[in-house]
C-alpha cells in the first residue's frame, strides 16, 4: 500500500471499553495504520468509555470500539476493531 501524504492536523479519537478484546485490537490496528501511513503527523487520542462514559455520550458514540476522525473535516466514524485496513484508510481519506 502506498503511503498517503501526511496531512496536517489528522486528529483521531478511538473510543474503547477497557481492555475488551475488540478494543485492544482496535488500539493495535489504529496505532499501526497511523504509524504506517501517517508517520508522525497524527494525533490519536484513546478514550476508555468505561472510565469516561460522558465523553462518548458527548460525541454521540453508541458502541465501542469506534474511531472518530475529528479533522480534517468532514468528521467520520469507523465502528469495529479496524481489522479491515483498506476500509479504515478509505474512511480516513474521505472528504
Amino acid at each position, binding site marked *: 500500500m502506498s503511503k498517503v501524504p501526511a496531512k496536517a492536523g489528522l486528529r483521531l479519537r478511538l473510543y*474503547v*471499553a*477497557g481492555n*475488551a*478484546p*475488540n*478494543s485492544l485490537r482496535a488500539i493495535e490496528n489504529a496505532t499501526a495504520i497511523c504509524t504506517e501511513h501517517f508517520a508522525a503527523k497524527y494525533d490519536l487520542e484513546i478514550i476508555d*468509555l*468505561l472510565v469516561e*462514559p*460522558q465523553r*462518548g*455520550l458527548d460525541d454521540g*458514540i*453508541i*458502541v*465501542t*470500539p469506534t474511531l472518530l476522525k475529528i479533522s480534517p473535516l*468532514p468528521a*467520520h*466514524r*469507523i*465502528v*469495529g*476493531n479496524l*481489522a479491515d485496513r483498506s476500509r479504515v484508510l478509505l474512511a480516513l481519506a474521505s472528504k
Partner: protein
Amino acid sequence: MSPDRRTRPELIRQLQEAEATITALLSGQIDAVVDPKSKSTVLLSRAQDALRKSEDRYRRERDSAQRYLDTAAVIMLALDVNGRITLANRQACSILGWTVDELLGRDWFEMCIPADVRAAARASFRELLAGDLRTRASTVLTRTEGLRRIEWRNTLVRDDAGAVVGTFSSGTDVTEHHQTALALRVANERVRFALETANVGIWDMDYGTGQLRWSETIEAQYGLLPGGFGGRFDDFIALVHPDDREGLAETLGTAMRSGADFTTLHRALLPDGEVRWLSGTGRIQLDEKGKPIRGVGISLDVTDRHLTEERSQQAQKMEAVGRLASGIAHDFNNLLTVILGFADFMAEDVPAGSQHGKDLAEITKAARRGRSLTRQLLAFSRQQILQPTAIEVNDLIAEMSGMFEPLLGENIVVSLAPGSNVPSARADRGQLEQIVMNLVVNASDAMPAGGRITIATADVVLDDHFDDADYAVVPGHYVMISVTDTGAGMTQETKRRLFEPFFTTKPPGEGTGLGLSTTYGIVKQSLGYLRVSSVLNHGTTFEVYLPRWEGPLPAANDSGPAVAPVRALTGTLLLVEDEEGVRKLCGRILNRAGYQVLEATNAYDAERLFLEHGGSIDLVLTDIVMPGRGGPALIRRLRRNAPDVKALYMSGYTDQSIPSQVDSEGDLNFLHKPFEAPELLERVREAVLK
C-alpha cells in the same frame, strides 16, 4: 446554501455509519454499548456472559431434564397432534430399538404400532387428544419385529394460548407382567375348568359379615340357578336334607371351635324333591381369640359314587341272603318233601272230615307254604334251575289276564297293550308267569283307591346306554314287558330298597317282602334287565327286558299239562338219593304206583346195582348233589356201557353250574324238590315213556 442541502450528505453518512455499526455488531467486533439512559458504558461481554450463563443454565436444565428422561425406567414419548414423534427418551429407544434421530419426526403409529391394531391405536389417540386421559395399554412393535406391552400414562401438551399441540406420555413396559397375568389367568382358567369339570364347587364364608359365597357349581349341586343362592348360612341349611341338618351343624360347630380341617357328607334336598349326596372339605380360620374369621371349602357331588356304593352293599347283602337261602333250602326242601309225602300217605288212611284229617290238611298247607317261600328265596338268590323255552309273551299275558280279576280289587282296571311283531322271549315259562303276577299284584297294591294297570309288550333294541342299575347291558334285541300303574309312585328311599329281600312298604303281616326281589332274581338269572321309573303321585312303571329266543321255534303243541293215564305203571327204577327221608318217601310212592324200585344211597351203590341188574332198569332217578359222586357224573358213567339209559334228576336248588352240566348231556329232565306224589309220578311216567 440551504440547511437541507448541507444535511443530506450528512444523513447519508450517518446511515452508512449505522449500517457499519450493525455490520460490526453482527460480526462480533463490538465490545461495549453506551447507554444514554444510565449514562454508562455497558460491556457487551458482560451481557454476553449473562446470556451465556442463562444459556448454560438452560442447557444444564435441559441436560438434566434429558438425563432424567434418559435415566427414567419408563418410556417418555411426546407426539404432535398428527401423531408424529417429537420426543423420545433413551428408554423409548432402548425398548423400541430405534435411535432418537430415527424416531423424531416419524409417524408413531406407522412406525411402532402393529398393523392389526393401528386403527384402534389411532382412535385411542384421538380420544386422548379430546381429553380422555385414562391410562391405556397398547402393544408396540420394535425394530426387530418384537412385540411389547406398554401401559401409558398421558397428558396433553398445550401452547401459550392453551391449544393442544401434542401429547406427552410415560410408558411402562408391562410385557412380563402382562404375560404373568395372562399365565395366571390361564392357570386360573385351568383350575376353574378342572373344578367345574370335576363338578367341584367352591364356597367361602366371611364370618364378619355373615356372607356365604357359592360358586355356580355349588348352586347347581343344590339345584339352584346361577346367582340363586341367598348368601347366608341359614339359606344353606335350608337346602340340606332335614335329617342331615343336625349332624352337619355339629361338624361345622366343632370346626369353628377347633379351626381344624373338616369333612362333611350330607344330602341336599333339591327344590324338585331330588336328593343328592354332597361331600365337602373345608377349613375355618380363627383369629387369636379363637373367633372364626373366614371359612373356605369345596363341595363335590358324590351321588353316583354313593349310590354305587349303596348298590354294591345292597348287592352284597342280597348275595349273602342268597347264599344263606340256598344253604338251608336244600335240607329244608328235603324235609318238606318228606313231610308232604308222608302226610299224603296218612291222608289216605284218615277220613278227611275227622279231626286227624283236618290236622293233616293243616300240616300239608303249612308245608306247601314253606315250599313256596323256599322257592321264592331260591329264585331271588338265582339259585333255582330255570328251564328256558321260547315264549310268546303276548299269548302268555292274554292267558294270564283271566287270573288277574279275582286277585285284584273291583276298582282296578287291567288293560293290555300287546306290541306287534314281538318275537319269542327266552325264559322259564313258570318263572315268567310269576314275574308278571308279582308285578301286577305290586301295581295293584300301589293303588289302594283303585286305578289302571297297563301291561304292554314290545320288541326293543337296547344299546349300551341303557340305564340298568347294576349291570352293563349286552346290546341287542329284547322282549319288553312293562307293567304301569297309576298309583302313588315311590319315594327315592323306596326305589333304592325296592329289590331288597324282606323290604316291604306294606303293614306287618301283609306281604313277605320277597315279591320284587324274586322278580329281580328271576330276571337277572334269565339274562334280562329290569328298569323302574316312578313319579311320586303319578305312578310307577316296571319294565322287564328278556332276551329274544334265538333258536328254532318248537312246533306248536298244546302246552297244557298232559292228563295222566289212569292205569298201573310198570317198570324198574333205580332210585339214588342220599337223604334217607326223601329216598324212603319216593320209594314208597313209586312202589305203590306199581314200579319196581331199587334204592341206592350213593352213586357207587347205584353203579353196582345197575350192573347187577343188567338191562332191566328203565329209568335212573337220581339226586344231583350227593356226597362223593353226583348224579350227572353217575349217569355219564352208566351211559358208557348203556348209552340209552334214561335219567330223571331230582334237584333242590343247587349250584347254577349244574343245569349246564346236565344240559350238555342232551336232556333236561328235572324234578324240583320239594314235590308231591302226583308230580313225581307224572315226571317219572314221562321219562320212562320218552
